[in-house]
């Protein structure tokens, strides 16, 4: 409320305004985990975080391949918007990987006939874990995107690095 600045204090930082770079970085952070931090100059952190998040996502996908004795095609079935849309809402945090997995392999294996559906005895043994891993990785990337969207992250970046420089 009308605070006056004494002569010895540092000038107040300018108010944060979202720029094109801000939006671009946020979209990149969503599409490819870790890339937002990479663009912010935290390259090592971005690479390690992206590797960890994508690692558990693709480990989950690899665990969701039906066994050879199954008549179903041998494609991962952990990410499929039509079959489990609620988990998909978590998985979609991984951006490009999730959209690619859903586009390539996301179609239901067979039509849903409700109570008339026969039980499938050849689902992947660890399908539950596969869905858990892919969902957790998507939610973790949502956290990374939120961190990139936080104006304080950009203020720290301006304060700690030269305009176009990056820390390793």
């Amino acid at each position, binding site marked *: 409320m009308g605070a006056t600045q004494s002569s010895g204090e540092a000038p107040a930082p300018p108010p944060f305004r979202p720029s094109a770079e801000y939006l671009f970085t946020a979209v990149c952070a969503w599409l490819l985990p870790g890339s937002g931090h990479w663009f912010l100059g935290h390259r090592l952190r971005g690479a390690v*975080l992206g590797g*960890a998040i994508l690692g558990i996502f693709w480990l989950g996908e690899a665990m969701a391949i039906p066994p050879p004795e199954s008549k179903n095609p041998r494609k991962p079935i952990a990410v499929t918007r039509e079959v489990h849309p609620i988990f998909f809402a978590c998985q979609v945090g991984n951006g490009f990987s999730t959209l690619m997995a859903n586009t390539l392999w996301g179609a239901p294996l067979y039509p849903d006939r409700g109570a008339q559906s026969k039980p499938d005895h050849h689902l992947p*043994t660890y399908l539950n*874990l596969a869905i858990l891993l892919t969902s*957790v990785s998507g939610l973790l990337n949502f956290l990374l995107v939120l961190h990139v969207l936080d104006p304080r992250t950009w203020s720290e970046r301006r304060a700690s690095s030269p305009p176009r420089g990056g820390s390793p």
Partner: protein
Amino acid sequence: MMAVLAAAASPSGSVVVHVSLFLLVSLVVAFVTSAIRVGDVQQILVETRKFFVTIILVIAAFAVFVEALSWVFLRR
């Protein structure tokens, strides 16, 4: 490889796989949340370890509670 898959498909192997992957996911969650909150590498490792131990202890306590309820009400 086939022996590993067969062992993983057995009931006891299934428990090992579930617990191992639970530990892996907990470790990744602890690491990612710590790396977001703090910047220094040493601090990240310390925070990761603390958060990981907390997750494990809380989930273990919850598992014991659920097991106790199961024994009390279902006798199994």
